[in-house]
């Protein structure tokens, strides 16, 4: 991917902003000017460094369709100064962008295999580009299953899209919430519990997992119990970042740097460091 100076943000405009959940917004932005305009210009799983001018810069994953190279899509939860400033940008406003950075979901390696996508909360956003690609190239894969867990029915991200995918006959979409009251008719319980019920052949399954770290640890345990090989499980990790190009050491995780070696990791490379609270 051509990039003039990876440390220098390019100034781009917001094309559209959409509210997903009370604190979560999706921004569609112009791609960096040096990105290819007529071909996929990022890989599912990668992220950008986004700058809210005058406030700061943060890593945010791509959440849009990799086939749509004309606009880059990011889904952002307002948690602090920078993410909040980004979610307040409107169509026409400018922001800075550096990227794409980081590793990708192993979609080519998963061809011919069953694919199990396990997402928790906002972890669905970094997985959505992978889901778009799996569905666009559906014939290349065996059974495709999406298991999504979140807190309550009101916290379901991309709800309409999940409903649309559910209606397809060639993908199994299961949504579960931690607890529910009233008229929710779907599953209740944690997302790892759905793994035991899902229909896949563990010996030829690739699993893609993204969500809060605790959810990923429990998911990993459930996948192991189901018989999925450690080398066939990939997780997306998050650590605070500064340079995003492997120079500053800010994003260190065990012996690795998340910006350079991740954010998508094969689980056997990561597992030894996962249960440790702080590294």
């Amino acid at each position: 991917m051509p990039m003039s100076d990876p440390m220098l943000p390019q100034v781009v405009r917001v094309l559209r902003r959409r509210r997903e959940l009370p604190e979560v917004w999706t921004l569609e932005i112009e791609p960096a000017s040096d990105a290819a305009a007529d071909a996929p210009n990022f890989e599912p799983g990668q992220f950008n460094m986004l700058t809210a001018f005058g406030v700061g810069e943060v890593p945010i994953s791509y959440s849009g369709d990799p086939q749509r190279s004309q606009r880059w899509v990011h889904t952002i939860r307002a948690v602090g100064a920078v993410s909040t400033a980004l979610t307040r940008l409107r169509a026409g406003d400018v922001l800075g962008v550096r990227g794409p950075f980081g590793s990708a979901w192993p979609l080519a390696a998963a061809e011919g295999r069953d694919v199990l996508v396990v997402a928790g909360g906002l972890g669905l956003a970094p997985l959505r580009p992978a889901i778009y690609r799996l569905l666009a190239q559906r014939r290349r894969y065996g059974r495709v299953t999406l298991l999504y867990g979140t807190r309550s029915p009101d916290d379901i991200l991309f709800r309409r899209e999940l409903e649309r995918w559910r209606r397809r006959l060639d993908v199994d979409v299961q949504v579960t919430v931690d607890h529910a009251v009233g008229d929710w008719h779907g599953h209740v319980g944690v997302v790892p519990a759905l793994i035991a019920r899902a229909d896949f052949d563990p010996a030829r399954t690739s699993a893609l997992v993204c969500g809060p770290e605790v959810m990923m640890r429990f998911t990993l345990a459930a996948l192991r119990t189901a018989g999925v090989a450690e080398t066939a499980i990939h997780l997306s990790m998050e650590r605070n970042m500064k340079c995003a190009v492997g120079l500053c050491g800010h994003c260190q995780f065990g012996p690795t740097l998340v910006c350079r070696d991740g954010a998508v990791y094969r689980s056997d490379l990561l597992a030894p460091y996962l249960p440790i609270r702080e590294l």
Partner: protein
Amino acid sequence: MPTAMRRIDQIVREHRFFAGLTDADVDLISGCARNVAFAAGDYLCREGQPADRFFLLRHGRVALEIAAPGHGALTFQTLAEGEIVGVSWLVAPYRWQHDARALEPTRAIAMDAKCLRGKCDADHDLGYEMMQRFVPLLVQRLHATVLQALDIYGDAHKS
């Protein structure tokens, strides 16, 4: 009724929860088993009542609920085919800690808890087989409860 007995035997043998049991154990267990059906909205059990049965779901879906003041029924887990409703029968004082309500027409095997406890007391090998099946289930439910209690989606930025 020999036909009914045979059917229960078969059902118990084929249920994934009892996979790997010897024929003799299946016979013993089946003596405590009965086929039951529930319409959508029916309760399989109610909080506070004696836990004198547990259920192996064959078809349908069941919600485990707790009455939460001001909220009505709070569902904390849904269970489906192949899964077990009820672990309170394992430990004294053998009372249900929650409601279980059928969300759709549901068929299940109801196990008479007293009958099964009696057989496990009399035959510790059978008791061990049962514990080998129930302990992982309890651990799994404990982990799920921990995850839910942590409310991991609540404050993490990825939630």
